C-alpha cells in the first residue's frame, strides 16, 4: 500500500506528459495539486495508529538473490516527513498555479515536481539502504531539473550543475558508506543495521562508514562547507525554493541523521562532528544572511543557518543513547526540539518564501536596495511577512519562539556533559548559538522592515504594485495560521507526531519527552532571548554603521572560489588528457582497441593458462565451407586495394553476408537472420552517412608506422584464431549450455536462443533495449540539435 502512495505522483507525472497537449494548461496544475492533497489525507489517516506506536509495512521482493527488497515502513519519524512533503507540497503547487507565468511550461514544471515528490517519499519510507540511495539520488536529479527550470538563464544552469555536483558527490560517498554498513552487518535493511550497529563500534569500518554517511547528509542538508550550493539554487522558481530548498529536500540529510541516531548515536565522534558542523553552519549562515541584498539569497542563508540549528540539536541529542536517568531526558529533550523545530521551520520558512515570491511577482524585483514601503500596497503580504519573520526571529506568539527557547535550553545542557573541559566548551557553544540567534533576529527584521516600511524607491520604471491574487495568498496564510496555531496548541503536534517520532530515535523516548510551555518562568533562556531582542534591535537600527564591514571579508578565500577553481582545474586537466589520445583519427582508435584486445585476451590467456590447441577430432570441411572461406579471404584482401569508398563498403558487405551464410551452415538460423538484416540496414546507414565522410585518400605512412600497424593487425588476427581453436578444448569451467536445455519446461519455448533473450537473461535484454534507446536519443540530439555556425548557443536562445 505504501508503495502505491510513493508511485502515485510518478504515475500522475507520466500521465501529465502524455495528455498535456490535450487539456487546458491550468488544468495540469489542478491535477498535480490533487496528488499531494489525496496523499496527505491518506497519510493523515494513519496518524492515530502511528501515535499508538504501531508502524505500517509493505514489502515486495526486488532482487531476492541479494536480499534487496522493496520494503517500505511508515513509522513516527517517517510520518512527520511524509506529512511535510505532501502538506507543503499541496500548498506549493496551489501557489505555483498562480505564480508561474503564461510562458512557462506547466507540463515540465509539474512533471518534475511530482517526480520529486515520489523521490522524497521514497527516501523517508524506504527500509532498504539501496532503495533509499536510489530515491536519494532521484531527489538530486529532480532538484537539478527544477533549479534549471528557466534553463535559458545561465545562472540557473550553473546553480543546477553546482547543486547536482555537490549533492551527488555526497550521495556517492553515502553509497560507499551504505555498502560498508552492509559488509559490517550483512543486511540491507535499515532496521537490522540500526539494531546491530551499537555492537560493532570496534569494527574497522565503523568510523569510515559513519564519515561517509555523514558526508551524504551534510551535502544534502547544505551544511558548512557544502552550503555553497543552496544560495545558487535560488535561481529556481520561488515555489521550488519554498518546497525543495527549504521545506523538504534539504531536510533529507536531517532525516538520514535522525534515522541513524539509534545506530551511531552514543559515539563521541558522531556527537562532536554533527554538533560542531551544525554550530558552524548555524553561525555562518546567519552571519552571511545579514549582508545579502537579494531577498531570496537572504532566505537561502537563513535556511542554511536553521538547518545548522536542527543539526546541532541532533548532534547534542545523539548522546541520549548511552546514558540513563536525568541525562537521558536532557538529550532526548534536544532530539525532541530538533523535530519540533523541523516542523516549525517548514511552516514559517515556507510562508516567507511565498511572501518573497509575491513581492518578486508583484513588484518585479527582490533586491532590497530597490524595495521599500510596500506595506501600503501589499497589506496582507505584509501581515504574513510579519508572522513569518517574527517566528523566525524567535519572538513570542509564534511557534519559532517555543523551539528557539528549547534550543537554548538544549545548548545550555551541553556544559553538563561529563567530559574534561566540558563546562568551558559548553559555554563557548552557548555563545556561538546566542550570537547566531542575534544575527537571525537582525536579518528577520531586515526582511520585513526594509521591504515593507520606509519610502518606496520611485523611479521611471516604478509601477504601483497590486496585492497578489487570492490563490497566491491562501497557501502562505495557511502556513501563517499554523505558525500561530502551533504557539498556542503545541501539545496536539507533540502528542500525535513528535512523541511517536521520538520513540523511533530513542528507546522509550516519548516518556521522557517534555511538555511544551510558552512560559518557563524567569530562567537563563528567557534572559538570553531578552538580550537577543534588545541587542538585535540596536544592531538593526545601527545597521548602516556596521554592515559595510562585510566587504572586508576576502572573497578569494571563499569555498565558492575553491569550488570554481577545482572545477575549472579538473576541466582543463580532463581536456588536456583527453585531447592527447582522442585525436579524431579513426585508424588510431582502432590501434587502441586492437592493442587492448590483444593484451587483454591474448596475453592474459597465455600467461594465466597456456592454451592447448589440439587437432584431435576436427570435423570435416565441406566444399561449400571451403569456397566461402576463400571468398571471404579474397574480399578481405581486396578491401586493402579498393580505390573508392563504395567498393570498400560493398566488399565489406560481402564479408557480412558470407558470415551470415556461415551461420546457416552451422545451423544458427537466428544469428543468420539477424546478421542478414543488420547487413542491409548498415549498408543503408553507410549510404546516408556518405555526405559526412571526408574525401577518400590513401594515407602516406612512414615505414615504422606501417610495420607497427601490420604487427597489430597480424597479432589481432592471430589472437582471434588461437582463441577460436582453443575454445574447443577449454575445460576450465563447466559448460553452461546444459542449463538452457530445459528451456521448454522452464520458459515454455522451444527456441533456446529466444528463451535466453526473453527469459533466462531477460535483464540483459531489457537493459540493452534501454541502452539502444539512449543511443538513439544521443544520435538524434547530436545531429538534429547541432548548433549552427555562428549562432548563439542553443541554451541561451
Amino acid at each position, binding site marked *: 500500500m505504501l508503495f502505491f502512495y510513493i508511485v502515485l505522483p510518478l504515475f500522475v507525472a507520466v500521465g501529465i506528459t502524455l495528455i498535456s497537449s490535450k487539456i487546458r494548461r491550468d488544468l495540469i496544475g489542478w491535477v498535480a495539486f490533487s496528488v499531494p492533497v489525496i496523499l496527505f489525507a491518506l497519510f493523515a489517516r494513519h496518524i492515530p495508529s502511528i501515535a499508538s506506536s504501531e508502524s505500517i509495512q509493505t514489502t515486495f*521482493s526486488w532482487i531476492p538473490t541479494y536480499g534487496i527488497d522493496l520494503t517500505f515502513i511508515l513509522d513516527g519519524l517517517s510520518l512527520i516527513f511524509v506529512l511535510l512533503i505532501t502538506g507543503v507540497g499541496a500548498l506549493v503547487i496551489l501557489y505555483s498555479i498562480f505564480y508561474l507565468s503564461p510562458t512557462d511550461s506547466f507540463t515540465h514544471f509539474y512533471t518534475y515536481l511530482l517526480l520529486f515528490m515520489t523521490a522524497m517519499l521514497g527516501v523517508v519510507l524506504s527500509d532498504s539502504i539501496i532503495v533509499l540511495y536510489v530515491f536519494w539520488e532521484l531527489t538530486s536529479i529532480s532538484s537539478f531539473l527544477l533549479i534549471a527550470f528557466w534553463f535559458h538563464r545561465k545562472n540557473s544552469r550553473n546553480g543546477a550543475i553546482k547543486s547536482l555536483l555537490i549533492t551527488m558527490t555526497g550521495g556517492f560517498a553515502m553509497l560507499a558508506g551504505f555498502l560498508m554498513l552492509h559488509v559490517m552487518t550483512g543486511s540491507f535493511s535499515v532496521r537490522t543495521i540500526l539494531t546491530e550497529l551499537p555492537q560493532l563500534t570496534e569494527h574497522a569500518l565503523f568510523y569510515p562508514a559513519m564519515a561517509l554517511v555523514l558526508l551524504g547528509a551534510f551535502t544534502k542538508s547544505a551544511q558548512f562547507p557544502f552550503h555553497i550550493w543552496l544560495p545558487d539554487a535560488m535561481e529556481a522558481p520561488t515555489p521550488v525554493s519554498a518546497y525543495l530548498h527549504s521545506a523538504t529536500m534539504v531536510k533529507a540529510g536531517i532525516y538520514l541523521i535522525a534515522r541513524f541516531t539509534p545506530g551511531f548515536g552514543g559515539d563521541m565522534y558522531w556527537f562532536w562532528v554533527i554538533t560542531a558542523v551544525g554550530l558552524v553552519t548555524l553561525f555562518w549562515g546567519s552571519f552571511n544572511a545579514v549582508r545579502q541584498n537579494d531577498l531570496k539569497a537572504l532566505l537561502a542563508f537563513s535556511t542554511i543557518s536553521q538547518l545548522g540549528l536542527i543539526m546541532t540539536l541532533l548532534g547534542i541529542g545523539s548522546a541520549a543513547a548511552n546514558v540513563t536517568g536525568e541525562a537521558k531526558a536532557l538529550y532526548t529533550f534536544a532530539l525532541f526540539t530538533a523535530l519540533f523545530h523541523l516542523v516549525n521551520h517548514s511552516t514559517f520558512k515556507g510562508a516567507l518564501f511565498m511572501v518573497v515570491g509575491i513581492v518578486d511577482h508583484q513588484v518585479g524585483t527582490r533586491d532590497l536596495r530597490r524595495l521599500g514601503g510596500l506595506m501600503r500596497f501589499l497589506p496582507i503580504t505584509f501581515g504574513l511577512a510579519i508572522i513569518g519573520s517574527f517566528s523566525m526571529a524567535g519572538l513570542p506568539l509564534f511557534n519559532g519562539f517555543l523551539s528557539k527557547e528549547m534550543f537554548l535550553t538544549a545548548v545550555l545542557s551541553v556544559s553538563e556533559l561529563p567530559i574534561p573541559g566540558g563546562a568551558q566548551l559548553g559555554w563557548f557553544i552557548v555563545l556561538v548559538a546566542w550570537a547566531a540567534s542575534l544575527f537571525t533576529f537582525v536579518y528577520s527584521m531586515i526582511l520585513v522592515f526594509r521591504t515593507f516600511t520606509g519610502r518606496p524607491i520611485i523611479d521611471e520604471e516604478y509601477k504601483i504594485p497590486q496585492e497578489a491574487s487570492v490563490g497566491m495568498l491562501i497557501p502562505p496564510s495557511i502556513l501563517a495560521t499554523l505558525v500561530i496555531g502551533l504557539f498556542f496548541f503545541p501539545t496536539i503536534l507533540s502528542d500525535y507526531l513528535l512523541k511517536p517520532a521520538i520513540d523511533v530515535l530513542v528507546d522509550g523516548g516519548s516518556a521522557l519527552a517534555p511538555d511544551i510551555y510558552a512560559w518557563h518562568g524567569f530562567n537563563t533562556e528567557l534572559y538570553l532571548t531578552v538580550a537577543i531582542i534588545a541587542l538585535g534591535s540596536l544592531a538593526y537600527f545601527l545597521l548602516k554603521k556596521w554592515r559595510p564591514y562585510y566587504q572586508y571579508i576576502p572573497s578569494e578565500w571563499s569555498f565558492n572560489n575553491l569550488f570554481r577553481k577545482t572545477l575549472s582545474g579538473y576541466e582543463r586537466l580532463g581536456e588536456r588528457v583527453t585531447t592527447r589520445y582522442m585525436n579524431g583519427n579513426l585508424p588510431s582508435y582502432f590501434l587502441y582497441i586492437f592493442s587492448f584486445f590483444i593484451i587483454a585476451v591474448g596475453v592474459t590467456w597465455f600467461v594465466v593458462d597456456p592454451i592447448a590447441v589440439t587437432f584431435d577430432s576436427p570435423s570435416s570441411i565441406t566444399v561449400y565451407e571451403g569456397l566461402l572461406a576463400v571468398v571471404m579471404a579474397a574480399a578481405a584482401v581486396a578491401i586493402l586495394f579498393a580505390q573508392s569508398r563504395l567498393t570498400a563498403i560493398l566488399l565489406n558487405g560481402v564479408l557480412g553476408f558470407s558470415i551470415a551464410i556461415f551461420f546457416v551452415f552451422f545451423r544458427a538460423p*537466428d544469428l543468420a537472420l539477424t546478421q542478414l538484416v543488420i547487413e542491409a*540496414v548498415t549498408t543503408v546507414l553507410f549510404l546516408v552517412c556518405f555526405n559526412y565522410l571526408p574525401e577518400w585518400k590513401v594515407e602516406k605512412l612512414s615505414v615504422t608506422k606501417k610495420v607497427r600497424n601490420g604487427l597489430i593487425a597480424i597479432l589481432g588476427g592471430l589472437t582471434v584464431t588461437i582463441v577460436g581453436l582453443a575454445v574447443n578444448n577449454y575445460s576450465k569451467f563447466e559448460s553452461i549450455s546444459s542449463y538452457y536445455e530445459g528451456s521448454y519446461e522452464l520458459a515454455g519455448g522451444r527456441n533456446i536462443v529466444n528463451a535466453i*533473450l526473453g527469459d533466462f537473461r*531477460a535483464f540483459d*535484454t*531489457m537493459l540493452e533495449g534501454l541502452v539502444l*534507446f539512449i543511443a538513439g*536519443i544521443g544520435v538524434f540530439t547530436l545531429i538534429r540539435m547541432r548548433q549552427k555556425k555562428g549562432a548563439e548557443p542553443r541554451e541561451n536562445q
Partner: protein
Amino acid sequence: MKINDVILKTVVKGVVLIILTLSIYLFLSGHHTPGGGFIGGLVMASAFVLLFLTYDVETVSEGIPISFKKMSAVGVLISVSSATFPIFLGQPFLSQSFGYFDLPIFGKTELATVTIFEAGIALTVVGVVVNIILSISEGSNKWKA
C-alpha cells in the same frame, strides 16, 4: 537529370507489405522457431527504411504519421513495466509465465507473457533504427544546403 523510379516505387509498395508480414510472423514465431522481438523489430525497421529511401521523408510521414522517437520510448516503457509488473503479484522482478489455451480458430495455443516483453523490445528496435537513419539522413541534407 530526373531519375525515373517508377519501377522501384511500384515494386517497393508490394515488397514492403511482404516484409512487414514477415516481420510480424518472425516476431510471433520466435517462441519456438527462429525469430523473436529483436529480429522482428529489425525486419520491420528495414521495411520502413526501404519506404523512406524510395519515397521522400515528407510523403512517408504523411502516410504513416508515427513518431519513431515516441515509439522507441513506448517500447522501453513496455519492456520495463512488463518486467516490473510481477513484483505486484509477489513474484520476482522479470518473472515470465506461460500457459496453454484453447482459442476458437487457432486451437490449442500457447500464450506467454514474454511476448509483451518482446513487443517492447521490438518497438524499441524499430523506433531507434528508423530514428537514427532518419536523423542522419536529414542532417546530411542540411549539411549540403
